[in-house]
């Protein structure tokens, strides 16, 4: 149903880190933005940040539920081939996954950006650290990132850090143990406010960030980007607008979007001069592939057939141990800023050449006293001895979670399934993804490293199954399906997240990444989206867009 209607300057699809950044940066430069969010705003006052674990069931029995952040796959299914599961986590609603994200805020370095050009696997990144560094600096200052100012080739420091969260005992001891075998574990970089910053409240160290922060003390797109953008009067947010397609005119330029109202299921179209796709990697890719037209039978901007391909997530596993210095000791409040206060940067690019490409780092969340004792399932026995064994080990738990890069491969891909339609009649995503020999070789060193650190700490190691990896998608770090590059035959976007083929479409989320790296992507998504929209604002001012 086509209507004569208002033509918006810019439509932003999605309200997470990338969409929020695009809207904030454009509106403050005077550009009118209409943001389409697939859900509604999550109310902070309804977060269960301070509901104790034993209170949950009674509340649910009374019909009192926490915010339903996570999209139910019954509402929005996706397909995977038999035997190739993919755990896709989506948050539809204002702020998207930043409401509940892990807050690890690492800068990529030239070990990442220049890596593909050096090792020759797939295409090079079109940008280097020097291109994005000014934007990392701005993001750090704007959102507030606490932690390490130390600098190494695989993990750049930042002069703009808020004070680091003090490591817990277990983390200190792990740092010490790792150092003894030549591995550095540094202060983490986390987007949590260890002091009040830019009008946002300081963290109160309750450790329940995963249920949403009731005071907004860590970066989330809704409070930090969208609210200030709304204050400019230049932003309008449309709730419950589930975008299906980007529409094009006869000249092959984008001229709007088609969306469905999530409540009424009615179809609508909107007109725009520029469309920014920021619906998160997989959902953005689905929109692009479903945007078929005479000009783009393969999906908008996809004559190269790269869109949907090169899906890269990360491999990950978990290893646990109990530190002898802490076994039987007092229980401390180890909540801190929630998650780890330290990080093990990539080191395998140094020393002997490995028999695999790319690298891995490690996180340490879940070390110290937790609000459960799941580790107890791995302890033997029953009865008083068992109960005593659990209690003694409870304060002594340390956890390692190594994350490794997955190489981009053409056959790791997202497609749209014309035979499987969602409730609006729009084809759903089909995710075909598996890891390869390179990742299996890397996992060997990842396991060796984690075990060596625990052995150096003289830890009692919880039995593990060597080689086991989490189900694909679990890291929630999807990248690469609309990658940037210099060559329009092998990439969909230029270094400013702008489509080679359709210059008034920008894709600013994880889909734009040329490679996944081993690092958590959100800080880089924010920096890339800021840079892309600076470029777009300039193009609009000069009349080129």
């Amino acid at each position, binding site marked *: 149903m086509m209507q004569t209607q208002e033509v918006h300057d810019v439509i932003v699809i999605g309200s997470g880190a990338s969409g929020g950044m695009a809207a904030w940066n454009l509106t403050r430069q005077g550009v009118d933005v209409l943001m389409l969010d697939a859900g509604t705003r999550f109310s902070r006052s309804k977060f269960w940040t301070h509901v104790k674990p034993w209170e949950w069931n009674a509340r649910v029995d009374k019909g009192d539920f926490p915010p339903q952040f996570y999209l139910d796959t019954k509402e929005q299914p996706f397909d995977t081939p038999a035997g190739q599961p993919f755990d896709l986590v989506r948050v539809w609603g204002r702020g998207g996954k930043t409401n509940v994200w892990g807050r690890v805020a690492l800068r990529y370095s030239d070990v990442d950006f220049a890596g593909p050009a050096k090792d020759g696997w797939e295409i090079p990144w079109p940008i280097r650290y020097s291109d994005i560094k000014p934007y990392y600096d701005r993001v750090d200052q704007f959102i507030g990132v606490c932690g390490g100012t130390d600098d190494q080739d695989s993990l750049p420091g930042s002069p703009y850090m808020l004070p680091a969260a003090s*490591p817990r005992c277990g983390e*200190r001891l792990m740092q010490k143990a790792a150092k003894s075998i030549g591995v550095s574990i540094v202060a983490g970089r986390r987007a949590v406010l260890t002091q009040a910053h830019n009008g946002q409240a300081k963290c109160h160290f309750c450790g329940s960030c995963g249920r949403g922060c009731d005071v907004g003390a860590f970066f989330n797109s809704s409070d930090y980007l969208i609210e200030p953008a709304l204050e400019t009067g230049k932003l309008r947010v449309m709730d419950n607008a589930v975008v299906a397609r980007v529409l094009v005119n006869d000249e092959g330029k984008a001229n709007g979007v088609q969306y469905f109202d999530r409540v009424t299921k009615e179809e609508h179209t909107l007109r725009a001069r520029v469309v920014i796709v920021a619906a998160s990697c997989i959902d953005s890719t689905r929109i692009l592939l479903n945007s078929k037209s005479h000009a783009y039978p393969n999906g908008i901007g996809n004559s190269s057939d790269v869109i949907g391909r090169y899906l890269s997530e990360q491999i990950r596993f978990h290893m646990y141990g109990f530190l002898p210095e802490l076994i039987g000791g007092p*229980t401390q409040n180890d909540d801190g800023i929630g998650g780890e206060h330290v990080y093990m940067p990539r080191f395998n690019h140094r020393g002997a050449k490995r028999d695999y490409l790319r690298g891995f780092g490690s996180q340490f969340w879940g070390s110290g006293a937790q*609000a*459960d004792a799941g580790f107890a399932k791995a302890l033997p026995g*029953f*009865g008083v001895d068992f109960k005593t064994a*659990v209690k003694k080990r409870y304060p002594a738990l340390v956890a390692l979670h190594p994350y490794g890069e997955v190489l981009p491969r053409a056959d790791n891909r997202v497609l749209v399934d014309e035979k499987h339609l969602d409730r609006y009649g729009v084809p759903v995503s089909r995710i075909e993804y598996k890891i390869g020999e390179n990742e299996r070789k890397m996992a060997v060193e990842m396991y060796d490293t984690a075990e060596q650190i625990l052995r150096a700490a003289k830890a009692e190691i919880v039995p593990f199954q060597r080689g086991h990896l989490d189900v694909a998608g679990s890291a929630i770090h999807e990248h690469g399906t609309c990658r940037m590059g210099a060559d329009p035959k092998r990439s969909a976007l230029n270094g400013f997240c702008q489509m080679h083929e359709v210059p008034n479409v920008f894709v600013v989320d994880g889909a734009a990444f040329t490679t996944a790296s081993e690092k958590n992507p959100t800080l880089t998504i924010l920096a890339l989206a800021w840079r892309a929209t600076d470029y777009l604002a300039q193009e609009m001012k000069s009349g080129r867009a």
Partner: protein
Amino acid sequence: MAVSTRRELLLSIAAAVPVAAQHEHPDTSVAVAYTTRVFSADELKTVARLVDLIIPRTDTPGASDAHVPEFIDRKLSLDAALKDRFLAGLRSFDGVLKDSDPFSMLLKGLTVDGYYTSKEGLTQELGWHGNTFLAEFEGCTHPEHQS
């Protein structure tokens, strides 16, 4: 660890009739009512006995003091596959908890989940005092832990 007799343990579990279980709370003497959704009265008793063999009452509450049988009942009511697996395991259980036995491990896992997220298990047994408001987080203050 063996329980007294298999016969004593394996009570009639033919009909899963919801029952109201009354537990005298050991610390506060507050009676907590819970209407079972899956277990019959006999099953609830059996499960209570089993979870107390896994985590008994010591100077701190045991698993049934912390309402772990009710926790398990609720959990099973939300997951049909788990419920079937659990009840089948319970019916064919030989009465001896073993780390090599799938039902023992299922029960142990559920007991751990229930007990160590209960107020009794978390605060009285483990001494957890988190999820609160702190002005500052000190972290490790032990000089001997520094690198």
